[in-house]
């Protein structure tokens, strides 16, 4: 009888140990899972710039005496426009696109 009681208590202790270690191991697996998923999804961490700077294109647009190129004139324009003119037009288009959907500027 005494032996049986002792065996039963012994089993309970082992049972507790298994449950205890089972929970601990689950926590270890969860720790690893969380850490690895965090590491895999770690995105680039960019820091703010020292002085908030605007895109040169936006700055050009804000410059005194700047006049946007007429959209119709640009699209309708045929020959006679030089290389520099074409480049400027391209810059204006880009600037307009930026005004519609401005890019977030770090540090601002």
């Amino acid at each position: 009888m005494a032996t049986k009681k002792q065996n039963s208590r012994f089993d309970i202790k082992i049972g507790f140990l298994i449950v205890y270690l089972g929970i601990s191991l689950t926590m270890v697996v969860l720790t690893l899972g969380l850490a690895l998923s965090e590491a895999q999804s770690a995105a680039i961490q960019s820091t703010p710039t020292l002085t908030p700077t605007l895109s040169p294109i936006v700055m050009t647009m804000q410059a005194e005496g700047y006049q946007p190129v007429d959209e119709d004139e640009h699209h309708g324009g045929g020959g006679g426009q030089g290389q520099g003119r074409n480049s400027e037009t391209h810059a204006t288009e880009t600037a307009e696109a930026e005004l519609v959907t401005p890019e977030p500027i770090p540090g601002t």
Partner: protein
Amino acid sequence: MSKAAAISIKERRSRERRQKNIVTVAAFVILIAAWVIGRAGAGTDVTPYAADVLPTADRIEAGSNGLFTGYATVDGSEEVIGYAMAGTASGYGGPILMMVATDPDGNITNVAVVEHGETPNFFHQLDLQNYYDQFPGMDYSDALILGDDIDGISGATLSSEAVAQSIRQAVRGIGGAAIAGADIPPDQQPVKFGAPEVALIALFVVSFLLHRLKRRTTIKKYGRWAVLIAGLLTLGFIFNKPFTLSNVVTFLSGYWPDWHTNLYWFILVFGIILVTSIQGKNPYCSWFCPFGAAQEILGSISGAKPYQPRQLYSKLRWVQRALSFTAIVLGLALRQPGTVSYEPFGTLFDLQGSWPQWVLLVLVLFGSLVIYRPFCNYICPLDPVVDYIGEGRRWVKNAWQQRSKTAVSTSK
């Protein structure tokens, strides 16, 4: 014992030895494979990150020397608006790769982390405590040394150090490659030897000497307690620099840190290997592991006893080994030494950790009141690693003795 029974025991032992050898060879092959996979997957193309650190550039040109030049169109003509370059240095969990951008004069405008293998909770502290904000405005002529012109982050000193080193490498690279007439100072790293290194050496020496005491058991007993408490306070709560799985994976993967700035790492790793090889017993775990000390102190308060049920214990030890092995393999294959370090050491000593680590810490601390060192005996990934060093020592010793015996019998 009958002859048949003796043969049966001999056969069983022989079978067990064969199985053990197969497991050892398989484990070795898997480790090598993980190392090769990790090596093959290492190396990130940093080109896409140049655009992130040069957000105002319309066009980025990659040079052959790792220099990226950012251009923007102003009034129809293209102008250089800045440069970018990647720099790398070894941190706590392997190399940290940083991308740095400067203006045309070489002043840092932007820095970004491209890749790291640090423990996420600790590395995140750099971001939370605005560590990176110190760099914009500095240039290639600045020292960029922790404690000099850069403030480190407490609890993530090695990561802070490596980030500063990576940025220094990159900004000086830009200075040398793009800034005409840049006077780049020589890269001189002062050897960092301070209180943590002194404490660690003292713990190694005292524990080694006490371990060799054969007669004075009282001195040995109280000396061990003194060393344990000293380890808990210094390596644990004051410096938070215990031996972790990250150290093991860093060692195996070859991501050894710069000895000038991380001398502590070398003393710890090679100290354990050296002392275990000399005295045949792991000095760290039983003498000055701070987490082991915390468990042992709690256990001594409540009178906890070792609990190792005979038949179950050997199986549970295999579970512990499998856990440790899996974490090492993952760390090697993914080249993420800091990530696979699942021990809740930092959770106790620096109050940093994910929620499962907090739960694990509570379980371990409460468990320590009932069972003697439950974490060390059943969960710690380092115990099997240090055991393996001891096993290696025994194997070499046996082989040497065998060779000596053979040599003697041949000469006779």
